[in-house]
């Protein structure tokens, strides 16, 4: 132990005082995450408001943490939630279990399930951390209609899948500024 060692230690303190701080003043100072940050899930909609989820359970199958529960339902002519035969009747993600790996997103065959950047997933009640379909569904944008309603953009689900992206661009030319920006960034 040398004579100047205590002063050397203060040297570190002094030099750090003049550097840029890395401490974030969360939650007062809220900073955006990286655009591809794996935050909360979102169940997207077709441009007319019908749900993209078909209740296939591939997300639940892919989930390594068994955090997702899905039960399919049968669309009828009178009560239609998604194009085609099947929709997700019950959809739950347990954020106590979710590890944010994103395998569910890769598994989704209809690009229904994506992740937004929202990360404030903490609570003092376990029950509230099981997000249900109502919590996860994307908000209705202008031009969208709350399901159940008939298919507006085509005669069958094929029309939705083939023409859907194009229709979405036409219907929402300025989507970059809207609340969809997080999703669009995925």
């Amino acid at each position: 132990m040398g004579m100047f060692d205590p002063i050397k230690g203060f040297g570190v303190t002094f030099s750090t005082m003049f550097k840029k701080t890395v401490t974030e003043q969360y939650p007062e100072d809220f900073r955006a995450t990286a655009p591809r940050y794996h935050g909360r899930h979102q169940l997207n909609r077709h441009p007319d408001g019908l749900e993209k989820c078909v209740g296939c359970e591939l997300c639940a199958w892919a989930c390594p943490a068994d955090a997702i529960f899905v039960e399919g339902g049968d669309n009828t002519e009178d009560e239609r939630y998604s194009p085609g035969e099947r929709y997700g009747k019950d959809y739950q993600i347990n954020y106590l279990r979710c590890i944010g790996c994103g395998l569910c997103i890769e598994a989704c065959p209809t690009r229904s399930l994506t992740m937004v950047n929202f990360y404030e997933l903490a609570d003092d009640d376990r029950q509230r951390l099981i997000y249900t379909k109502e919590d996860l569904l994307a908000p209705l944008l202008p031009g969208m209609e709350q399901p159940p309603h008939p298919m507006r953009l085509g005669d069958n689900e094929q029309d939705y899948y083939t023409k859907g992206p194009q229709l979405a661009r036409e219907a929402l030319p300025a989507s970059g500024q809207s609340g969809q920006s997080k999703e669009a960034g995925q």
Partner: protein
Amino acid sequence: MTLAADRNHEGELEVPEGYVKLTIDGLEVVAPQGELIIRTAERLGIQVPRFCDHPLLDPAGACRQCLVEVEMGGRPMPKPQASCTVPVADGMVVKTQHTSPVADKAQQGVMELLLINHPLDCPICDKGGECPLQNQAMSNGRAESRFVDTKRTFPKPLPISSQVLLDRERCVLCQRCTRFSNEIAGDPFIELLERGAGQQIGTSATAAIADEAESAANTIEGKPFQSYFSGNTIQICPVGALTSAAYRFRSRPFDLVSTPSICEGCSSGCAERVDTRRGKIMRKLASNDPEVNEEWICDKGRFSFPYVAAADRVLRPQVRNAETGKLEDASWTEALRVAAEGLTAARERGVGVLASGRSTLEDAYAYSKFARIALRTNDIDFRARAHSAEELDFLTAKVLGTNPETGVSFASIEQAPAVLCVALEPEDESPIVFLRLRKAARKSGTKVFHLASWTSPAVTKTFGTLLPAVPGEEPKELDHLDSAVRDQLSAPGAVLLVGERAAEVPGLYSAVARLAESTGAKLAWIPRRAGERGALEAGALPTLLPGGRAVADAAARTELETAWGLEAGALPTEQGKDTADILRAAADGELGGLLVGGVDPDDLPDPALARTALRSAGFVVSLEVRHSAVTELADVVLPVAAAPEKDGSFVNWEGRHRPFEIALHRSDGATLPDCRVLDTLAIEMDADLFTQTPKAATEDLLRIGYAGTAVAAAPNAQPSEQPTRSKPNQAVLATWRELLDGGSLQADEPALAGTARTRCVRMSANTATEAGLRKGELAVLSAAVDGGGEVRLPVEIADLPDGVVWAPGGGEFGKIRRDLGVGHGSLVVLRGGGSQA
């Protein structure tokens, strides 16, 4: 046939007679002559992809997926062969896709062709995750498709019955479903239609549906796929072309917890798999049990499980409030105390026990022991249906203690030269017996005779011969059988099957026993309910104690007293009353109480008397799964578990022990099996049953052992005088309960109920003319004696003897027993109802 065939001292495979030696993928193997290459390969552990091949169906070679290279006598066959249709031959050299690039390429080519028109809708398909096409496309297909054009499409899904949905886009035309319906079930309602690219599976109703608009109507017109076995086509479909309406989009294979189980639907005791998800049964599938149900189950067994989750389940013990007269929820402690006090008080005057024909062996044993020890009576009977003292003698003499080795088994039906069904409609009362009869007739040339009143579908489908009999005159017909029939039944291995309806015809059981004696034919009793045979072995009868011991036998009683640890003379010595006598005594106020375990009064011979008895009995304790007519009148109601919620065992009609485990774990009040409830109740009454769990009950039952000392002479009753038709509009009623009749196990399953047969009353053309009725008109049936209700059913003309009408038996829709109070062989009054059906 074992894999490791014997080798001689030179190390060569020895080929026994009737076997051949061949090489598959370089491995030498000995196979029985006539075996198909695909099965020999399978035994070697070589998996050849296939869709149409099914071990229980005739070979078809329809899908071409199982192509392999075959070489005979050093000369390769010019093209790859379908291994599911080519039998093995001596010196054959087979190369599968594992060793032959030719076979591999051929299989990949076939797979590519099959997938050309297969839609990419695996995510929404119910088969996804357990789909042979999905799996084999991964293992034996190419990753890339070269097909870029539009796929062929059909409107979908198309209901071909209320429980089967058809998706023609997904179909690979393997014809498993049509072959099953044709060969196994004998209900060819589903067929290949059209040719070439338009080829499709369909029924007569779907053939006409060509465009979207027509299918949107989604009606089941014409002849729907109406079969008691249609659920099997869903299970064997190798793609998602046939799916279940009830299971539609409910879960994926990885969600399901599967438990092997035994069906509680009938006395065959079929092996099933129960799939549950989050505390609910999602579906039931047939398991493979070659000795019993092979790989098939009936639709009742497959679809009738929603009753377990019915809204009217009894979930809490209930005690009737003495002041308000209403049932009120109570704690177990409270309810058991009230029940024990009530039964103890009632014991002085006597308590009758009506056990259920649906109980497991363990539960029936608990009822039997509870009656003897806690209630000190022999007044116990499991026969919640028409019954007779003659039946009791018959069961003791001919049925008690038989097992598949000593008595009749499914295998012995299959090998029998001739089978006679007496008072048994196999398709309705025991569907798997029916399938085996049909198989026997198709494959082994078994002659099937039916002693019945008309040529029912089962007679036709078993290629059977009808021995026509007027209800009530069956004993006479049996005693004077045609000598040709008698000769066939005298052949070694011939089998007599008798159903529970025989109890309604005095003298019939005696005649059956006589016929068995004189012909030497083997005899089997086939009850309808799953628990009847077990209850017989458990001694839930007024004359029998558990383990084949007679009440009247002092030595047997002493033996049982020692085994049960009772003091000498503790067991009641008097023979008990049967169901009818118990009810009569209770109605007359002679009994102090009744203990009822899962009995529906409408099943009993006299429903009105049963209701009076429940009202007049001083104290009624009911152990029930769901609220019923009995719980309405009971003083204490104790909830018990349904069959999938408990473990235990059934004894099927062969006498085969069929144990099963808990398939559905409940978390609410109805989790205890009857034997546990009775055990606790007995403790409250200072008696020990040692049946805390079904396992303990089994142990206790094993400990007392099977004595088989109860002997009874085969009944030799003479047929009673038949009621004669005094007026022209009177007719003799022939009846049995149909398989799908809205019975209590079939509750809450509309898709299943939709495939029930059309209710009608059948009669000969002469009888109809006499009553002024025509086909399709409504006929009104009423009881010939003392009023009662009426039943209205449309008229069908069939080949019944004149003066005989047939109507469906019980259940929600039949109502014959409940509304008319009559049964098989009774007189009914027939008149026109006027309006068109």
